[in-house]
Every structure is written in structure tokens, then in C-alpha cells.
């Protein structure tokens, strides 16, 4: 009798893990929209972020608009902080935070302000900062001084 139960247990165990994996695969949505009121809501055909394959978070570029839709007052430092507030809200809505960001692209109206921007930027990435590309553009939406887009990866 004991041997029978032991045999049953042994054969059941792999079956359970196969069923669990199959369920996980079908639950793995290939594309999920992130939408939070804590960041400016989309005003066009885009999402604040898309989570792909349940793990890879592609964030739309953020500019220094507050959730109420108004551009924050001030210069590059104030705008950079607002951009990061917006990014944080979207990251948290996606289930992660700044330590999960693997890549950013920083678009600036004036690269002469790079070091001021960089000093603010650095405070959000204390260790293992993400990969990054930075360049000067001619113009950003709403004539913002800075736009930052990011890619994050959710833990497994």
C-alpha cells in the first residue's frame, strides 16, 4: 500500500509542474497596457507604457508635464525632476521601479545644460545605472527642455 502511494506521488509530481507551466504560458499576455493617473494621461494614440511578454516594459518618452496636464515651472532641473516623477509613476504602475530600468534615451533641447540634467538624473540611479544615449534635438513636444524614454525589465 505504501509503495502504491509512493509510486502515485512520484508520477503526480511532474504532472503538476507541467500543468502549472501550461497555465503560466497562457496567462503570459504578450502585450499589456499600463495606465496610471499619477502620470500625465495619454492625449493621443500611445500608451504610458507597454509590458511585453510579461517582462519587458517599454515606457513612452516623458516630458515635464504634471498629471494635471500643465508643464512644470522652472528650468532644466525642475523639468528633469518632473520627468522622473512621471517615469516613477509609470514604473510603479508596471510593478517595478528605477532599479529595474536597463536603458534610457535622453533628448535635450540644449546640450549645454547636460551637466545640470546629469546631476539630477544621477540621484535616481544610485548603483548600476542603466545604459543611456543622450543627444540634442531641435524641438520637443510642448517645447519641453527634456524628454526621457526608458526600458525596464520586471523580475522573473
Amino acid at each position, binding site marked *: 500500500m505504501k509503495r502504491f502511494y509512493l509510486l502515485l506521488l512520484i508520477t503526480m509530481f511532474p504532472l503538476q509542474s507541467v500543468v502549472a507551466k501550461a497555465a503560466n504560458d497562457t496567462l503570459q499576455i504578450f502585450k499589456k497596457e499600463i495606465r496610471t493617473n499619477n502620470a500625465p494621461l495619454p492625449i493621443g494614440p*500611445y500608451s504610458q507604457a507597454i509590458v*511585453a511578454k510579461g517582462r*519587458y516594459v517599454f515606457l513612452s518618452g516623458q516630458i515635464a508635464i504634471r498629471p494635471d496636464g500643465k508643464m512644470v515651472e522652472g528650468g532644466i532641473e525642475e523639468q528633469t525632476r518632473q520627468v522622473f516623477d512621471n517615469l516613477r509613476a509609470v514604473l510603479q504602475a508596471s510593478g517595478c521601479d528605477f532599479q529595474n530600468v536597463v536603458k534610457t534615451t535622453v*533628448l535635450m533641447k540644449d546640450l549645454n545644460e547636460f551637466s545640470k540634467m546629469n546631476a539630477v538624473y544621477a540621484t535616481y540611479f544610485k548603483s548600476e545605472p542603466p545604459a543611456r544615449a543622450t543627444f540634442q534635438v531641435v524641438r520637443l513636444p510642448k517645447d519641453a527642455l527634456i*524628454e526621457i524614454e526608458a526600458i525596464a525589465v520586471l523580475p522573473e
Partner: protein
Amino acid sequence: MKKEIRTQNAPQPIGPYSQAISTNGGFYFLSGQIPLNAEGKIVDGGIEEQAHQVMNNIKAILTEAGLSFDNIVKTTIFLSDMGNFAVVNSIYGEYFKGMVPPARSAFQVARLPLDVMVEIESIAVAG
């Protein structure tokens, strides 16, 4: 690990790049598309014609890969003039009608290849 996607229905690469690259993990990275027709000529007309041509080039590559616009998770829009954004935005939106739209960044650059007015790159994920 990676595979080249290539279709005759979008402009052929004229340099060291592929129209798109797919990975084992089901990611498709599409090169920036500009408003050339499949023969390699800039489409006639203005910003509307250029925006449609770009979206149609993207569609041709997606089709070759067995995907649709619904598989796109992220785009980047490069404009020669931010003043054209509203028009581009409206045309772009038509191609994602009824779908969850991808994440996006948009900005004005100093100059685009062949002095076109719009370029769009995209990342797609297989379902």
C-alpha cells in the same frame, strides 16, 4: 539567435542594415522607415503622403514577419518639423485604431536621410 526579415514590399536596404531583425525570444526590431516606396523613390506629396508611406512600409515588414500593428509595443517618431506632429499623429493613429496603442516618443530632429519629413522605428513582439 537572430533572423533577418526581408520583404520586396518595403524599400530594400541600401547599407549595412536589415529591414528588421527577429530574435528567438519573439522580439522584432524594425529599422526606421522613411517615406520611400518599394522602388526606392520618395513618395510624391506632402507630410500626409509621407506619413502613410512610412506606415505602409512598416505594415509590409510586419506582414512578412507574420505580424500586424497590434504586435508593435514601442515606436519612435522622428520629425523634421514639430509643426507636422498633429498631422502625423492623426495618420499614425489610424493604423492603431481599435488596438491598445504602443508606447512612443516623438521629437524634431535637425535632418533626416534624403531630407524626408518623417521617420518611424518600431519594436514588435510576437503573440
